[in-house]
């Protein structure tokens, strides 16, 4: 059995009160509860305050480039599809810089779990607007308020083919643990959007704001219905934030559909050696 301690690296340097503290604890707790150890899990961190968890969480990890955690995670999964792979990213990272990768990872149903710290701002670069910010959000880079409307991460993912889409709130660690566990256990692409107050740069989407606007999906909510899931997602546009598994369906993952990987992972396979088979093409 592993413990929280096994996963704990350096002490976090996040601002006091930052939502990342809750998410950090939730991730470690989820890994412990899943009976994983630091040597049994692959983690890719994006670049941002969120990605700075690299030094606070023990695992086989890549601290990647801004926006590129998802393809790195896909690569790890292709190489060793038996290992759980998690990407820990910011909303700027995942919905802005790396938005294209998100869409295609959904389409491919790559069996990775993407945990997005949705704080509406670019924390690490000191508070410019993120693609999730509400229209009109004033930031250093949008002093008159942002012109664009926010991305809707949930409907974007559902519409792109993600087979697990959940939302959680950094202020409710137990809920976040449950979502992260379910996401990692889900076979196929999972997105967990975690609403994360940034106490330093986002004075709009505060703990109080979210406490008023979030609600938990009822127990009888049918998460496998595509249409209702899209409808639920769209509530975010009216500043209502459903918490829970908004959508889950069972489909073969990308690696499930590669006959090459049926028996062994790519990394443990024997070397190919029947070169005659290839050379006949050239005679």
């Amino acid at each position, binding site marked *: 059995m592993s413990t929280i301690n096994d996963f704990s690296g350096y002490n976090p340097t996040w601002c006091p009160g930052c939502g990342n503290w809750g998410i950090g604890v939730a991730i470690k707790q989820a890994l412990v509860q899943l009976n994983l150890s630091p040597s049994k899990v692959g983690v890719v961190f994006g670049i941002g305050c969120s990605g700075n968890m690299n030094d606070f969480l*023990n695992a086989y990890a890549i601290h990647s480039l801004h926006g590129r955690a998802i393809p790195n995670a896909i690569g790890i999964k292709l190489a060793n599809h038996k290992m759980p792979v998690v990407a820990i990213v910011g909303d700027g990272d995942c919905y802005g810089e790396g938005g*294209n990768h998100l869409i295609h990872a959904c389409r491919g149903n790559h069996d990775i779990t993407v945990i997005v710290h949705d704080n509406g701002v670019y924390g690490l670069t000191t508070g410019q607007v993120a693609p999730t910010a509400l229209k009109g959000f004033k930031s250093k880079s949008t002093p008159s308020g942002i012109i664009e409307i926010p991305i809707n991460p949930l409907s974007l993912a559902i519409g792109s083919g993600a087979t697990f889409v959940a939302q959680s709130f950094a202020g409710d660690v137990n809920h976040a643990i449950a979502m992260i566990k379910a996401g990692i256990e889900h076979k196929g692409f999972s997105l967990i959007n975690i609403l994360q107050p940034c106490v330093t740069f986002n004075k709009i989407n505060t703990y109080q704001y979210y406490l008023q606007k979030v609600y938990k999906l009822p127990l009888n909510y049918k998460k496998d219905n595509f249409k209702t899931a899209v409808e639920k997602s769209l509530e975010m546009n009216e500043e209502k934030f459903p918490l829970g598994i908004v959508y889950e369906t069972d489909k073969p993952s990308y690696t499930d559909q590669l006959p090459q990987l049926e028996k062994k992972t790519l990394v443990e396979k024997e070397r190919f050696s029947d070169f005659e088979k290839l050379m006949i093409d050239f005679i």
Partner: protein
Amino acid sequence: MSFTWKIGGEAGFGIMTTGLLFSKIASRSGYHIFDYVEYPSLIRGGHNAYEVHVSENETTHLNKTIEILVCLNKETFEKHKFRLTSESLVIYDKDEFGIISDYKTINIPFKKILSELKGQPVMKNTIALGASIAVLGGDIDVLLKIIEEQFSKKGEEIINFNKQFANVGFNQVKNNYKTLILNYLTKRKSDVKLVMTGNDAFSLGSMIADCRLYVAYPMTPASSVLTTLASWQKKTNIVVRHAEDEISVINTAIGASFAGVRSSVGTSGGGFALMVETVSLAGVTEIPLVIFVSQRPGPATGMPTWTEQGDLLFAVHSGHGEFPKIVLAPGDIEEMIELTAKAYNLADIYQLPVIVMSDMLLSESHKTVSKKFVDDFIAEYKVNRGKISNIKASTFAKASVDEQNFLRYKITEDGISERLIPETPGSFYQANSYEHLEDGHTTEESAPRIAQVDKRARKWQTYLKSDFQLPKIYGDIDKADVVFVCWGSTKGVVVEEQKILLKKDKASACIHFNHMYPLDKEKIKGIFNKKKRYILVENNSWGQFGKLLLQETGIEIKEKLLKYDGRPIMAEEIINKLT
């Protein structure tokens, strides 16, 4: 004996396939070939041409003179007639366009034959091949056998239907043009040869090196590596991912390589430009990666289906920040097989990105390669994964948390630290994009920063001592009147042109580089220490290798032969430069 056969016609009607078939016919008849395709960046409506240089001896270049020109349309004749002589043979259909004087002509009524035998337009090609074999004095059975193989799954009827077009073309010439028949393709004994492009060679070299993941986004002239390896997935169990863009391509490969799988990516200049941030990531995280860059004329979209050596300096300097990388540029198909396989070993041994450069000429031209050469290479090649930690789980089981901190970036004399394959029990580490301590944690302190920069840089010193290869010298520099300096795919034409010079009693030498970067200054200076007429030969307008050589060694080559119209350099152009 050597000759050039060329066929041209409208794009979309099988010219490419026909050209390759001719190359295979010549190879199976016992000859060496080197071929070259010309096509615009469209699928239909443009002009396609394919030429094959056939020789009794090994060949790696094109000749200016075309001995046999097969014109499936008038444009072929108009576009290429400047390369004909009065001895050249032109095969064409009188019913389609006007009489051509000044050359020896063979009229094949393609149109009439097609309508009589109810053939489809592409079958013109089969007629043309039959006629070509006849006029060259070749054996029609070689073509008939190929048709049998091609249509083996479609049954006897289809096979025979196709064969008749070959026979009709063949007999047209045999019956009506006896006096024009040459003996250029009479069957000769020779060992088994493979007809391969540079892209085929990169693909095969990757398989030999145990590459297990290839990721790419299509881009001419690198695309056929993607399609070839994709088509081999069932045979070899390699995984091929066609990702959403080149940024995803290289980051997927980085992830897989981190997880212990030999991985590579391939693209041309534009796609490589998108990858460059991650080249830098591979540099600092010390994740092995092989990157195939097949050049075409830029800037931007440039001339997608033509050739140029315009990205050498870009490749050498790719990636922000200072980190070591290795750049190789094979000169021909054999070197492509060897250096590709070597690139995977170098990437693993030195834990850095290794760029293998090609260009449209090398990537898409076929050349005959002795099968024995490939067999011997496969037998000799050893996969070297470099320093991979073999720490057993038990070592960690009792260790304290501190000891579990694996020193992935441990400071070493040779600059190389042990790697740990993820999922090795009892330990973990992070491959960190930020500057880091020996154990991978982020740092911004001065001392560890300097230590890591120096450690990474030492990998270059180790490489120069252990694996760098000096340029190969063709000919004798001491006796030479003129010394050509070239790199990558221009090797073929320069070496060929040396033979022509020799016939004119002019001795020359060629210094050909394929280990492009880093360069060993002192050793290279030793090669350039003679007072000679040095001429730099490059398929670009800047003389990029000349600049690199100057930058790295202080050697400056003033005289240059540069070609940058998208076409490969021809032997005659070098000869003309000398006179």
